């Protein structure tokens, strides 16, 4: 339960950044649009194929940067001093990452599906 609570708050935190929110949404949207517009392009097909990997990479980079910032700000220490283990913290971050990835893939699939 604590893990889920932390994951929900972490998603909230990530999505509160306007720029970050835009980048996270823009990547799958842009790739999907390119795929729709240039149907026969090998580049567009390749980009669509590696889009999930790019999304995972982006989310991993964001979560890593957030973790570093949280260590510097003292948030991790505060949570650890509230008897929350490193494992719980890491799991909650992973859940938030997977949730955002799922949203990105939903967006990507929805746009791709529009051509039909």
């Amino acid at each position, binding site marked *: 339960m604590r893990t889920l609570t*932390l994951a929900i708050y972490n998603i*909230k935190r990530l999505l*509160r950044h306007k720029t970050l929110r835009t980048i996270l949404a823009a990547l799958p949207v842009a790739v999907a649009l390119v795929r729709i517009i240039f149907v026969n392009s090998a580049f567009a097909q390749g980009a669509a194929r590696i889009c999930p990997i790019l999304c995972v990479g982006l989310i991993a980079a964001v979560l890593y940067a957030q973790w570093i910032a*949280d260590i510097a*700000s*003292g948030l991790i220490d*505060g*949570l*650890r001093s509230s008897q929350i283990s490193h494992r719980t913290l890491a799991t909650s971050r992973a859940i938030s990452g997977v949730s955002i990835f799922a949203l990105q893939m939903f967006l990507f699939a929805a746009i791709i599906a529009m051509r039909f």
Partner: protein
Amino acid sequence: MRMSGFASEIDERPMRRYTLNVMAVLTLENVSRQSAGTWALWDVCLEIELGEILGVLGRSGSGKTTLARILAGLLKPSSGSIKFGNPDDVRPVAVALSNPACAPELTVYENLDMFASVCGIPGRRRTKEIPAMLQRMQLSDQRAIPAGMLSGGALARMEIARGLMIESPVLVIDSLLDRLEPAIFEAVWDYILDLKRSMGRSFVILTGSGKVAETCGRMAVISRGRIAFVGRSEDFRRLAGEDMIVLGEMENPITRNRIEEHLSVVIREEDGYLSFRVAHGERVIGELLSEFGNEISCVYLKRPTLEDALEALAQGGGHIAAGTGQKKVN
């Protein structure tokens, strides 16, 4: 004082009163911590009793934060042990850290809600307690502001609120009370006293301010990683010397000799003022005024502060063998 407005909320809360057969809720035995080749803490022995407020006074870099981080479980001592009065407590110590723990993107309310929910406080209680706590900390107006936009003082208040909301027999507050304005400090202090009385909670107040340390029941002094003193603030203050009584103008020069004879003191002239030193200045002033009140234009009592004593301690090498109730003198 300000607490009267919250009395009903406190009464309604399902209170957990901490009781123990053994009086010590927290015992540090010969705790040392080495980091980067130097000893940040050395052989620290402290005992915190049930319902006690212990002030730990120390200058910057004396080892206060290391002590707080060890108590929070963020650092492991290199040697020594920490014993809790009741080993069954899930959260034996709550710590409000000097570097406030907050998610800058979340609002003040959301930050407190996040910490309260991960600490197992049920939703219904959270919706009742968080607004009350925000009001107590004078943060109600800022509840919807992202924590990253708060001032240093407001962040300190939020961190104290976080620590106070966590249910644990001992709360350690690291250097946060020093940053509060006097009016807010009084309100927070009243609440701390209330928690002490009603729930039997114990507090360890780590501070660099003599005024804060003085407010605590018992105080310890940490210097260069060692506990140099444990006892009453009055006893520690004496390290800085006796009280000084400064005398105003005297119409009759013989009065000076009469005062010297009557009080068995030596009056000196320093910076153009006549003064002498005595142990209990407040008592002597009464006697002085009753005997020589008509002959002296004014009398001023200058008492050494705890900061003066801390300075004297630093100049003396950091070690003393004074105080009452000290378990071990390093």
